[in-house]
C-alpha cells in the first residue's frame, strides 16, 4: 500500500500526462495492403491517426495523352490497363463514349454480349475485392476460394478472346468476335457451380467474429459525405439506407445503357438482414456486404442474358464511322468500383482520332474521401478502410 508520504507533495516533480510526440509514418507505395502503389503519409499520435494524406501518381502512364494520338480502336487496349481487374467494363465505357459521339446504334446481339461479359467481369472483380479484403484483415482462406472461382471466369474469358486479364474484347461498335460455340453452356455450368458457393463465403467471412470486429463501425461514411465527394458504386450504396427512402443509386437503373432496363434485377442497398448488431450503415462491413450481394444480382442478370443471347437479332459488331463528329460526349458506366466516366472530344481536323480523351476514375473519387474516413482511427484500421474502398491504382493514376 502506498503511504501518503511516498506521494510527492510537489506535483511538478512527477509528470504523469507525458504527451507522446506526433510522428509521421510513411505507408506504401509498396505496402501490400494499399492495393498497388498508393502511398499514405500518416500523422500519428501513438496509435491514433490524426491525418492521412494520400499521394498518387506512382502508376501514371499518360493514358489520356496516348488517347489523343491513337484511333479509338487502338486505345481500347489501354483502357484494359486502367482498371485491370475489370477490363471488360473499361472497354465498354470507352466504346459507349465514342458511340455516343458518333451517334451509333448497336445491334441487340452485341448489347447482350456486352452485358454477359461485363457482368461476369463484375463477379470476378468483386471476388478479388472480397478475397484480398480477407488478406488485408489477416485471414488467408477466403482468398483461395475467391481465386478458385475467379479462375473459372478467366477460363471463360480466355475462351472468348484469348486473354485472361487485358481482354480488349468489347470494342467500338460491339464486341470483337461472336461468342464461340458451346460457350453459353460453359457459362451456364459455371453459374450452376458458383451460385451454391456463395453461402460458403458468408460462413467464411461475413459472419466471422474477427472479421466483424475489424470492419463493423469502422470508417463510417455518411450519405452526404459520399455525395459531396461524388463517390459511387459500393462506396455510395453502402452509405444509403432503404428505410430512409434513399434512391438506390446504380447507373444500370438510373441511366440504363446496353439495354440494362430490360433485365430484372434489384440494386442492393442497406439495411441487410445479416448485419451484425454492432455494424452501422456506411461502415466497412456494409460496403463489403453490398459487393457480396451484387454478385448475386449479377448472376440473375447473367441468366437472363444467356437466355436472351440465342434469340438476339443482328450482328456482334457494326462498322465504325471514318470520322468522329466535332463535339464532345461524356458517358458514365457502372463499373465494379463505381461510375467510370469517359469524356471524348472530336475535332474536324483530326479525323477519327479524338482531340481529347478524359477518363474519370471512380476509385479516385472514392479515395479522395479516405483522409476523412481515416481521421481518428487506429493505424490497424487503415488497411480495413482502404480495403473496403476497393481501389485499383491503375485506374486512379491512369
Amino acid at each position, binding site marked *: 500500500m502506498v503511504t501518503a508520504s511516498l506521494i510527492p507533495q510537489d506535483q511538478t516533480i512527477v509528470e504523469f500526462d507525458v504527451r507522446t510526440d506526433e510522428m509521421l509514418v510513411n505507408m506504401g507505395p509498396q505496402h501490400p495492403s494499399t492495393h498497388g502503389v498508393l502511398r499514405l503519409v500518416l500523422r500519428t499520435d501513438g496509435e491514433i491517426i490524426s491525418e492521412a494524406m494520400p499521394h498518387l501518381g506512382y502508376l501514371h502512364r499518360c493514358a489520356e495523352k496516348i488517347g489523343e494520338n491513337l484511333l479509338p480502336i487502338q486505345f481500347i487496349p489501354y483502357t484494359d490497363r486502367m482498371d485491370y481487374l475489370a477490363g471488360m467494363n473499361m472497354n465498354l465505357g470507352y466504346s459507349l463514349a465514342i458511340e455516343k459521339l458518333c451517334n451509333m446504334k448497336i445491334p441487340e446481339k452485341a448489347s447482350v454480349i456486352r452485358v454477359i461479359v461485363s457482368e461476369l467481369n463484375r463477379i470476378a472483380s468483386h471476388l478479388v475485392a472480397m478475397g484480398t479484403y480477407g488478406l488485408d484483415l489477416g485471414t488467408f482462406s477466403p482468398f483461395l476460394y475467391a481465386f478458385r472461382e475467379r479462375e473459372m471466369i478467366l477460363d471463360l474469358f480466355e475462351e472468348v478472346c484469348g486473354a485472361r486479364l487485358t481482354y480488349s474484347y468489347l470494342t467500338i461498335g460491339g464486341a470483337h468476335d461472336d461468342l464461340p460455340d458451346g460457350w453459353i453452356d460453359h457459362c451456364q455450368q459455371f453459374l450452376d457451380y458458383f451460385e451454391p458457393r456463395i453461402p460458403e463465403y458468408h460462413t467464411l467471412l461475413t459472419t466471422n467474429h474477427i472479421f466483424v470486429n475489424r470492419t463493423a463501425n469502422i470508417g463510417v461514411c455518411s450519405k452526404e459525405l459520399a455525395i459531396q465527394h461524388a463517390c459511387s458504386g459500393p462506396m455510395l450504396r453502402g452509405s444509403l439506407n432503404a428505410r430512409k427512402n434513399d434512391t438506390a443509386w446504380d447507373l444500370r437503373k438510373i441511366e440504363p445503357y446496353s439495354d440494362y432496363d430490360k433485365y430484372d434485377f434489384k440494386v442492393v442497398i442497406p439495411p441487410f438482414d445479416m448485419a451484425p448488431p454492432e455494424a452501422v450503415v456506411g461502415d466497412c462491413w456494409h460496403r463489403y456486404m453490398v459487393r457480396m450481394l451484387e454478385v448475386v444480382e449479377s448472376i440473375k442478370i447473367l441468366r437472363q442474358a444467356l437466355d436472351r443471347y440465342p434469340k438476339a437479332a443482328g450482328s456482334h459488331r457494326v462498322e465504325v464511322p471514318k470520322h468522329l463528329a466535332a*463535339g464532345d460526349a461524356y458517358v458514365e458506366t457502372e463499373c465494379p468500383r463505381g*461510375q467510370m466516366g469517359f469524356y471524348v472530344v472530336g475535332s474536324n481536323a483530326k479525323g477519327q482520332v479524338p482531340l481529347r480523351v478524359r477518363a*474519370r476514375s471512380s476509385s479516385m473519387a472514392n479515395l479522395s474521401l479516405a483522409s476523412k474516413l481515416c481521421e481518428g482511427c487506429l493505424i490497424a484500421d487503415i488497411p480495413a478502410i482502404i480495403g473496403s474502398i476497393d481501389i485499383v491504382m491503375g485506374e486512379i493514376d491512369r
Partner: protein
Amino acid sequence: MTGAEIIATLEAECSTKIKSTKADAIDPFVFVEPGDLVAVATVLRDHAKLKFEMLNCISGVDYLELDPKKIAKAGFEPHVEVVYHFSSFTHKHRFVVKVSLPRWKDNKPGELPEVPTLSPLFPAADWHEREAFDLVGVNFVGHPDLCRILLADDWVGHPLRKDYEFPLEYHGIRGR
C-alpha cells in the same frame, strides 16, 4: 429534367451570368465567364429544381491545332476549356458547364490561365482541379493546396497541352 429545361431554369435564375447556351448538343451545356462560375455553380447546387449535388468530373481541354494546313478545317480559335460535369442525386439528371479561357494568361506563354476554384462548394473538385492544373495547366484561384497530383513535384510543363514537348531527360533517365 431535360437539358433544355435545365438551361431555361438556369436562365430564369441568373440570365446575366450565362454567356451562351447549347441545348441541342449531345450533352447540353452552357458557357459561363470565369468570374461567374462560382455563382452559377451555387445556383446549380442549391436550386430546388436543379439540386446538382455531385460534381463528377472536371476536364481541361486544350483546343489547339498544330498543323498549319488543318487550322481552317479545325474551325476553332486556340483556347483552353474547363468542362464541369454535374449530376443530381435527387433529380437524377445531368448537366455540363464550360468555361473558356485563353491558352495563357495575358498571352504570356508560361502564365497559366485562371479560373476560380469550386472546392469549397464541392469537395470532389479538390483532386480534379489538382489534376487539371497538373496535366492541362489551369490555375484554380483559391484552391487550398494546388500542387501536382499525378506527376512528380519537380516536373516541368503540362503534358496535356498540345504544344508540350517531352523532356529529353529527367534526373538522368533518358526520354524519347
